[in-house]
């Protein structure tokens, strides 16, 4: 069965199911003391590639307007002047548009890489960059498995740029600008666990239209950005080989060994020093 976007909405309207949620879902937090992080669900089935998100993002962050449009065969990349892009892919299901930006990992590699806490995972969920702390070492860029943080190479006062999920707006009780302006309702903002429930619901109610997979559910240990698509994710530019456990886990073993070395080494070295104190007399004899 071939279905286009218009038909899909019709079906939804008929079944009266899920799409009446609007642009955000708020559930009562299970535990008010432990706020659950927010996330964004992107549904490539609904995205028409209109770039409204790109224009909105550029506008509210004082960045230049996009000069190019999604084009099949061209992978547009985020860079220091644009924090989100929409790319078009030719797939078995026709053209599929995908919006990319920072994934806002649950356990971000960039945050654990940062030696000054400039990269910071807020309790609300967004991963933000703090100008007054950053020393510009770019280790966050080395570590990020999604290649998200960008650096202003041509500035004497360079910044690291990336999507911050409109953290300012979230603090004011608003939702991210791209979610608010998306005319296709392809973006949904809410508590991460609610978004996963919603994504599963869509997959189960419309199994013909979605692959049964949520990208970001446990990629890199789980991300704040969650993706639904009508084709396998490797067909639309996603790295599906990415490890399912968190990236900071990779250097934890090393970091845990540090205190042990700090205690054991000096003791050991001092012991050897004492034990070999008189060796030089023997060595001197041998050298003669």
């Amino acid at each position, binding site marked *: 069965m071939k279905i286009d976007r218009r038909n899909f909405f019709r079906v939804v309207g008929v079944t009266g199911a899920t799409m009446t949620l609007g642009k955000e879902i708020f559930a009562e937090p299970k535990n008010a003391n432990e706020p659950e992080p927010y996330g964004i669900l992107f549904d490539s089935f609904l995205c028409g590639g209109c770039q409204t998100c790109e224009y909105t993002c550029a506008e509210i962050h004082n960045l230049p307007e996009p000069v190019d449009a999604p084009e099949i065969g061209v992978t547009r990349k985020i860079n220091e002047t644009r924090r989100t892009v929409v790319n078009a892919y030719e797939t078995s299901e026709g053209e599929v548009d995908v919006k990319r930006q920072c994934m806002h990992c649950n356990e971000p590699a960039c945050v654990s890489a*940062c030696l*000054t806490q400039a990269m910071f995972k807020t309790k609300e969920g967004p991963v933000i960059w703090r100008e007054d702390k950053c020393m*510009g070492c770019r280790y966050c860029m080395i*570590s990020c*498995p999604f290649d998200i943080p960008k650096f202003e190479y041509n500035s004497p006062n360079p910044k690291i740029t990336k999507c911050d999920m409109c953290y300012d707006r979230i603090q004011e009780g608003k939702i991210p600008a791209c979610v608010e302006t998306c005319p296709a309702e392809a973006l949904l903002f809410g508590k991460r666990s609610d978004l996963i429930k919603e994504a599963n619901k869509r997959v189960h109610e419309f199994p013909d239209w979605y692959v049964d997979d949520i990208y970001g559910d446990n990629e890199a240990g789980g991300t704040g950005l969650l993706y639904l698509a009508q084709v396998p994710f490797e067909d639309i530019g996603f*790295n599906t080989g*990415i490890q399912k456990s968190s990236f900071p886990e*990779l250097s934890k073993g*090393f970091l845990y060994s540090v205190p042990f070395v700090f205690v054991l080494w000096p003791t050991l070295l001092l012991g050897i020093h004492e034990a070999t104190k008189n*060796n030089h007399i023997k060595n001197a004899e041998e050298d003669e």
Partner: protein
Amino acid sequence: MNNMGSYAISKDNDGKSIWKFLRAEFKPKGKFFTPFNIISLPVILVGFVIIIIRFWKGIGAVTNLTQEVPWGLWIGFDVVTGVAFAGGAYVITFMVYILNMRKYHSIVRVTVLNGFLAYVFYAGALLLDLGRPWNVVNPIIGNSFGTSSVLFLVAWHFLLYMIAQLIEFSPAIAEWLGARRARKILSGMTLAAVIFGITLSTLHQSGLGALYLMAKGKIYPLWYSEFIPVLFFVSSIFAGLSMVIFEGSISHKVFFNQISEKNHKAQNNIIHGLSKICGGTLFAYFFLQVLVFVHGKHWDLLNTPLGYWYLTEMIGFVFLPMMLFVYSYRRKNILAIKIASIITIIGVIINRLNITVIGFRWDAAVHYYPSWMEIVVTLAVIFTEIWIFRWVINRMPVLRDSPAWAKDVK
């Protein structure tokens, strides 16, 4: 003697005041138009100009760094490779002060000086690469401790290790200034500084490798494994010692008149002893690399251009120098040892660059190649370091024997 300080200094330096002494010492010594000076001075000057441009226009104005490859030659070579070669200092101090192998005592000072200057200059080169160097104090003081970061650990260890090395070297400065009391106090701190220094070195030599643990998927799989920290640590031993052999051979020619007859004779014996350690650690390293490779199950990747390059590194620059070290140790062939150390040095450079630059984002659309300006700045850093090294050697008792007064107080 009881009221130390300037009194002692003025007394030890033919009654001249400390300021006159220092002023005389800061004047250049020896011929000016040597081949080294003629080559290095223009490079240093051009490098200086490039550094000004870098701070004026931004890093992008002088480097070829990309958004995919944010660390290039300045980190991959200056810092990661340079620090491996500075590893000689902790290995030699381990042998002399911990294992009490007195045979190597005569090269401790020059090795520690080399190590110290390497850290000062390579950490200095790091400042050039920082986009926002005015915030460099954030991980050291203030409330911005990113304690979960390997780089945080490495930064602290660099700083502390530089202090430890300065303490290890400080008796030579005290002897130069004729400060007897200070020398006595500082010498007393040597063992503590050595133990602290070796501990720090173990952690940050491996830590430099651990920096790349999170770059899983970005480094060509033949060079990425969870054992990078161990491999970095083991290779820093023979990297450091090969540098000691190489640098020692040059110093013994250039600073011929500084070195006593006895130490000249001892030099070949020292090189011979070090070759055994180099051969042994290279064997351990080769064995580890084979284990890592078998464990990694990347047989298919060997039959690719980067796979051939990997094999070249492992066979030509690990296995071959290992065999050469073993052979030349048995035959007591000093020349062959020196050749093996040069091959090892090249091999370590190749290995570090493979992980940090060549194999890093090998799949990126735009490949990173260092710009000529990055190379000139790197050379300028190395040349400036050599200038300072030479300045110190010509003044302080590093290669030459300590003054008589320092000898009786052992």
